[in-house]
């Protein structure tokens, strides 16, 4: 695929080779020195000579099928393919001789004899490597009149048996076999880059065709995950984005950062005017290295969806219809209400929620407004309900709340442990990078109640799957510690050097107690002792051991304890402080890391400094010119509790849908309903907006400047590719509200906000937009000690000094199964949908996941008379809902599973109010439930739907 060549974005034909040994050769008279093992094609590209090619691309291993890249090498016979020929010392290569020119023209002539000559109307016109190569080799005529060919529906007056019509089943791209040159780039991209193995070449010789899945499948029904790697790899119009077919080729490209998960992929937004033509993963993006998933590449259509609210709206009562008003009116209405609440109920009676989907700069401003202008610390963020235990747990053990590695690190791992995460669905690009490493021989341990895809997927099989009962994480991890300590598998040198030996002694005594032995916990956790012991031995002694974890760890009443148990395992085995190891939280949303870094939590300023810390507070008091509260504020669940109790009355919510995403929906709605002023700042009239008095339209990531910080602490630029359709970037909206409440802020660009962050926050001291322009991205800490950031943390010592071992006693959750609620519900996310689905439900991604379904084991289904696709009622002690059943062995008997992407299902009506002991992170992952057959939506669902419709009424604007 030809695309916009940004600096260092060129295709070198074959992947780079890492070797200490250098080899010097001559190509067309130019001397070039490259690492041993490099291909002649790549060496030429480095020397500045582009050898014609069709089947080669530097993100794929050399294949040597197109024969276009032939060269002559002195002393060797024939014309070897430059892509598959490694360089040798003193080699003399000629890429353009009479013999080579003739050979290449002959190859092209054969290709073109079986290719339609409809270039002018072809969707790849101007973006076709076949076209380019025909030009490059000087093809001037095609002498062959093909007796048989693949590209016309009819030939010689009859149906052409070789013709296969276009496959338009995928909503985002089409497959047109008539344009295919069978270079296999798509098949190889699916294998090597994505790791799904959905594509193959069926048939042989003239019958060779690209095929998705099994015979009879189309792209949609196959295993294809629509990552688009094949489309990007295709040199012709065979696999083509439908957006390009509809719009035409783009005219410029702007590098920006995806706004979906915490992998934080870099993309080139390819534009024509202010229309996005397509998103192409950016090759130099250090998180994704040129790969993407279906969400990032294709699911951006929500930005122009008709449901977007573009005008501010207000109402006095949540039962009234909305009234569209000017920005000035909406802002002054909101400011007046918030100040009135404070006058009546006190300074601490209002607060706000920052968004983990917004930029660092926007998040910083929201917490600044709350602390400096609201005058309290009632700020929180949705990280409360996902990774707050990571913050507590890693800060306690290591000294800072962040993953220890970059994503490149996985390439050096020998044993990877995945705990409570489902990377192929939740963090697909990381999963692809992980699978690549696993195919190269690294071992995998999965600790998850569900048989996630990684347990067994083409060419990947977990060495151990510890399918624990939901809620027993701490018991399992402590048992792993028991095996490592009692079998003497720990790294004494590391512990003595880097941790407190006395503390370890106390921990070792605790964990060695026979009650923590896997044999003792087996009955409780459901994990066979022998399997657990084998997994512990593998992690401890299998080489570089890396742990990646997700919300299956944090969203429990012992979430923080589990994070600390993970940190214990990494410390005792010495798996910290170098490449290939570490403890890595996979963050749910694009800017969870950033929103935490930016001081969104009620107890800490940007850079994780407690509000009672006088030194830190004085830095901000000086910068902001106000006195700040030294007491921690309310966390989201506390805000809702306080609202029900009457002491919390006003809330500004930026880019979050707490009614749908937070647990125990009825409690959330009671809290919201009890407030006098709820300001929702969002793209859509989300579920929370049912209870809002002010709606401020938000802008998408395509419409603003700023930065996101991904799960590897990487600060990536977000660049505005189109004007905000709502009129303002989100930071400007917050600034208007702050100023209406007396703020007097004067920012004109987010770079000024970043400068303020750098000036106040030691770990960001050197982060400025100029540095980001120059480096592309940096990982914090980035300051005088680490001028271009820190890929790996805790290299010479822990941030806190000595690593701290914490005793992790298992405490069962109070959410217990019983005769009325015998099953355990756990929740998660799917590949095609994202979080509450506000964005992805407004794209074609719904073809893969149009509703939430309940996964249930065949045994549990049978005893309840439930068949696949039956409507079932799912009830807990908190509430009930209904959805369709999916009978599958992915879940163990006794466990059921669903997603929370659709408001119609509202899985959170079921979830409980229990939360992590340290952080109040809700216990989404364990709810005792019963499942029974049902006829359709419950009364609650019907009432909710009616209420939602009523609440979304909008009166036309007054003239």
């Amino acid at each position, binding site marked *: 695929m030809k695309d916009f060549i940004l600096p260092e974005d060129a295709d070198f034909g074959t992947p780079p080779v890492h070797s200490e040994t250098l080899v010097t050769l001559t190509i067309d008279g130019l001397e070039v020195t490259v690492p041993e093992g490099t291909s002649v094609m790549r060496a030429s590209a480095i020397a500045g000579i582009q050898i014609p090619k069709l089947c080669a691309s530097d993100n794929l291993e050399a294949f040597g099928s197109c024969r276009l890249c032939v060269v002559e090498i002195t002393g060797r016979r024939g014309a070897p393919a430059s892509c598959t020929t490694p360089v040798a010392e003193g080699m003399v290569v000629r890429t353009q001789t009479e013999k080579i020119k003739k050979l290449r023209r002959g190859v092209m002539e054969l290709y073109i004899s079986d290719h339609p000559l409809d270039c002018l109307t072809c969707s790849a016109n101007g973006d076709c490597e076949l076209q380019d190569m025909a030009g490059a080799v000087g093809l001037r005529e095609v002498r062959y009149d093909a007796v048989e060919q693949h590209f016309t529906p009819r030939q010689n007056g009859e149906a052409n048996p070789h013709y296969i019509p276009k496959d338009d089943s995928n909503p985002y791209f089409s497959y047109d076999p008539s344009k295919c040159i069978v270079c296999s780039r798509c098949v190889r991209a699916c294998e090597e880059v994505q790791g799904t193995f959905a594509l193959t070449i069926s048939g042989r010789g003239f019958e060779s065709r690209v095929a998705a899945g099994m015979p009879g499948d189309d792209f949609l029904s196959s295993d294809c995950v629509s990552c688009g790697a094949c489309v990007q790899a295709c040199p012709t119009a065979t696999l083509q984005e439908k957006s390009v077919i509809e719009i035409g080729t783009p005219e410029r490209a702007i590098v920006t950062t995806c706004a979906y998960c915490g992998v934080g992929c870099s993309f080139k937004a390819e534009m024509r005017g202010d229309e996005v033509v397509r998103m192409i993963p950016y090759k130099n993006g250090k998180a994704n290295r040129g790969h993407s998933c279906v969400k990032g590449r294709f699911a951006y259509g929500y930005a122009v969806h008709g449901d977007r609210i573009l005008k501010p709206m207000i109402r006095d009562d949540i039962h009234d219809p909305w009234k569209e008003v000017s920005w000035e009116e909406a802002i002054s209405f909101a400011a007046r209400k918030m100040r009135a609440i404070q006058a009546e109920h*006190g*300074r*601490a009676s209002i607060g706000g929620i920052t968004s983990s989907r917004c930029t660092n700069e926007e998040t910083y401003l929201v917490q600044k407004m709350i602390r400096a202008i609201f005058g*309290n*610390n*009632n700020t929180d963020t949705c990280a409360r309900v996902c990774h707050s235990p990571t913050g507590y747990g890693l800060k306690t053990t290591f000294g800072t709340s962040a993953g220890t590695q970059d994503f490149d690190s996985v390439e050096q791992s020998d044993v990877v442990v995945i705990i409570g995460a489902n990377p192929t669905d939740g963090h697909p690009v990381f999963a692809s990078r992980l699978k690549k490493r696993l195919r190269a021989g690294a071992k995998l341990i999965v600790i998850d109640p569900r048989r996630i895809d990684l347990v067994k997927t083409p060419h990947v099989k977990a060495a151990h799957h510890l399918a624990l009962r939901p809620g027993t994480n701490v018991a399992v991890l402590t048992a792993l510690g028991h095996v490592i300590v009692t079998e003497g598998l720990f790294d004494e040198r590391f512990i003595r050097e880097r941790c407190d030996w006395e503390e370890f002694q*106390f921990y070792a005594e*605790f964990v060695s107690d026979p009650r923590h032995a896997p044999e003792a916990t087996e009955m409780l956790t459901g994990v066979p002792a022998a399997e657990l012991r084998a997994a512990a031995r593998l992690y401890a002694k299998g080489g570089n051991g890396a742990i990646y974890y997700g919300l299956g760890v944090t969203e429990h*009443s012992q979430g923080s*304890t589990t994070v600390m148990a993970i940190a214990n395992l990494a410390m005792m085995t010495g798996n910290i402080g170098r490449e290939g190891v570490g403890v890595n939280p996979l963050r749910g949303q694009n800017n969870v890391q950033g929103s935490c870094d930016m001081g969104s939590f*009620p*107890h800490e300023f940007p850079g994780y400094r*407690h509000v*009672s810390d006088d030194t830190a507070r004085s830095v901000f008091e000086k910068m902001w010119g106000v006195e700040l*509260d030294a*007491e*921690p*504020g*309310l*966390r989201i669940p*506390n805000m809702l*509790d*306080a609202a*029900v*109790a009457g*002491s919390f009355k006003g809330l500004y919510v930026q880019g979050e849908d707490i009614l749908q995403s937070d647990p125990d929906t009825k409690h959330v709605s009671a809290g919201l309903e009890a407030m006098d002023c709820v300001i929702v700042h969002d793209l859509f009239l989300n579920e929370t907006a049912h209870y809002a008095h002010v709606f401020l339209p938000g802008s998408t990531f395509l419409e603003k400047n700023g930065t996101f910080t991904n799960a590897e602490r990487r600060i990536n630029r977000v660049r505005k590719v189109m004007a905000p359709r709502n009129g303002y970037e989100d930071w400007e909206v917050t600034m208007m509200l702050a100023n209406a409440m007396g703020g007097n802020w004067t920012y004109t660009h987010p770079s000024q906000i970043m400068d303020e962050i750098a000036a106040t926050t030691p770990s960001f001291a050197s982060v400025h937009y100029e540095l980001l322009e120059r480096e592309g991205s940096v990982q914090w800490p980035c300051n005088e000690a680490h001028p271009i950031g820190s890929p790996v943390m805790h290299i010479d010592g822990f941030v806190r000094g000595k690593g701290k071992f*914490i*005793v*992790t*006693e298992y*405490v069962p959750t109070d959410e217990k199964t019983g005769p009325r609620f015998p099953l355990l519900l756990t929740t998660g996310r799917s590949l095609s949908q994202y979080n509450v689905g506000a964005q992805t439900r407004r794209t074609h991604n719904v073809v893969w996941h149009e509703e939430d379904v309940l996964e249930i084991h065949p045994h549990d289904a049978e005893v309840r008379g439930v068949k696949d696709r039956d409507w079932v009622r799912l009830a807990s002690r908190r509430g009930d809902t209904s959805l369709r059943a999916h009978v599958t062995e992915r879940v163990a008997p006794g466990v059921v599973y669903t997603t929370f992407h659709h408001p119609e299902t509202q899985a959170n009506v079921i979830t409980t*109010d229990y*939360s992590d*002991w*340290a*952080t*109040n992170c809700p216990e989404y992952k364990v709810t005792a439930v019963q499942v029974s057959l049902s006829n359709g939506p419950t009364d609650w669902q019907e009432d909710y739907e009616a209420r939602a419709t009523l609440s979304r009424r909008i009166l036309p604007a007054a003239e």
Partner: protein
Amino acid sequence: MLPDKIVYMANQIATFFESQPEQDRLEGVVTHLEDFWDPRMRRQLFELIDAGGKDLSPLIIEAASHLKRPRQTA
């Protein structure tokens, strides 16, 4: 905030620190409550303790005697 919720949350914190080395328990609970509980939550805790501390873990009651009483109004 409902009183039983304050009790529940406080006891969860106590349960964790009860498993820690003896010398760290009290300080752990005190620091945790001061660092993470907003003043109105701590005030409610004091109200419960003043009313006899029913259902509260002894470690919480002991910790409260080391805890600063938040000012009445914010």
